[in-house]
């Protein structure tokens, strides 16, 4: 077991490594590949879906390069920036996460309400 990877290595971000970084392949400012550390399909697939719903995004895809590499690569291409829009892959991702955050807040409210109502009904019936 001497060369077994540490269990926590898959979960905890080592010091000095940034959670998210990105680069523009082929020097194309409308495309970015984000590298998100210590995340997997849970977030990857979710962000991909959220990005595809964005009108300015023309491509979104993700991959985990290897099961023993604990990061995902998220590739995003947006419409070519025009004088009217300041859209970039970074703003698209920030917006996607903001939308997701709002959905989650709403979901949390609804869920707590539903559970509260179920508990109230339970205590009434006995």
């Amino acid at each position, binding site marked *: 077991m001497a060369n077994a990877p540490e269990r*926590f290595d898959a*979960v905890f971000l080592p*010091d000095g490594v*940034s959670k*998210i970084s990105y680069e523009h392949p082929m020097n194309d400012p409308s495309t970015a590949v984000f590298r998100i550390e210590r995340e997997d399909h849970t977030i990857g697939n979710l962000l991909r879906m959220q990005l595809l719903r964005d009108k300015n995004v023309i491509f979104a895809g993700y991959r985990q390069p290897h099961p023993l590499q604990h990061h995902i690569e998220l590739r995003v291409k947006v419409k070519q920036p025009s004088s009217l829009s300041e859209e970039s892959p970074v703003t698209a991702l920030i917006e996607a996460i903001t939308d997701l955050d709002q959905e989650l807040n709403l979901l949390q409210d609804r869920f707590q309400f539903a559970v509260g109502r179920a508990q109230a009904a339970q205590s009434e019936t006995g």
Partner: protein
Amino acid sequence: MENGPSAAPGRRELPEHLERTRRHIEIGATRPSNVEARHAHDAYAALGVTNALDLAAFERELRVVVRSNTHDELVFEMQGIDAPLANAFRRIMLAETPTMAVEHATFVDNTSIIHDEILAHRLGLIPIMADPREFDYHSPGEPFSEHNSIKMVLDVECKVRADAVPDAPASQRFENASVYSRQIEWIPIGAQGDRYADNPIRPVHDDILIAQLVPGQRIHVEMVCIKGTGHMHAKWSPVATAYYQLMPVVEIRADSGSRIVGAHAQQLQKLCPGNVFDIESVPGSGLAVATVARPQSCTMCRECIRDKPWADQIRLSRVRNHFIFSIESTGALPAYQIFLQALEIMVAKCTEVKKKLEAASRGLPSSSSAAARTAQGASRTGTASASIGAPLSTIDEDDDLTNPNRS
């Protein structure tokens, strides 16, 4: 793209047959079809219909209904979300929601027939009744404290009872012939004794069989529980299972020519294991017609459409955005709390990624270690990199972000 006069921007209605493909997954006798969901904003652009995210519509269509709620199991319906979101919840509940579990077992004595390693594994899998939110993660090398660990001892020895009847079964002749989880004793560290006086830390279940002994055998093991997640080892998973299914839909075509009547209706009702169908008589005609009475009991076994003369008259499908979640807790946390925690963990993930990204796009070096610890998955202290063995880079990774053109 928006070429017709009816192509109002933001219009969301599709022609009926396309709306059906958007809403339903069809279940055929041999295979499911129309499985892929269409997430792209321009999936229906040719029809002038937008598929883009609309938060107002999301709010309108989102429905959460609890079906049953006990401490150990929660069943609830969530309508209006997409599969990636539902799957993210499931994965976070299974693998990323923390609990406490035995991680270190020190054997003082073990003369039982169970090997140390096997026994240690069994002890690890015992659910511990302790609120993980009140504990910190323990980093390797860090001393165990009242804030990051729980100490427990199991010390049992099997003896012949003084009043034993010679031919009685072993369980009556011997003391401690079976070792149960209730014999694990919690040793409070520091102020833990006062803090958890009302709800002492203990195994969730009293009657988990750990080992069986014969007279003269003894198990004496000291244990340390720490906080962890299912990602590292399944023993830290707070759920026995967490799964979802899509809402089943069973339809019998309504037009009179294709109703299922008479002997066929009888056969259909009989063969369905889920007892989905009823038989109703049509007033005046004396006809017995099969009707769908309990569609939610359908398990999609497809018995009703497999090589049957009426197969064309029945249509089975699932609603793509209607999830029935089942969460079975191991007992350490109430089932509904596990889902709430999963939500919080997801919000924390979003916040962390967003904050770092905003800092990076402004070209500011973000203080990686400070912000990382605010997030759930990274709330460990100390220098993890030293113990992991990764060389401390002299280049601040965040600097790279200020140069978007690096390759």
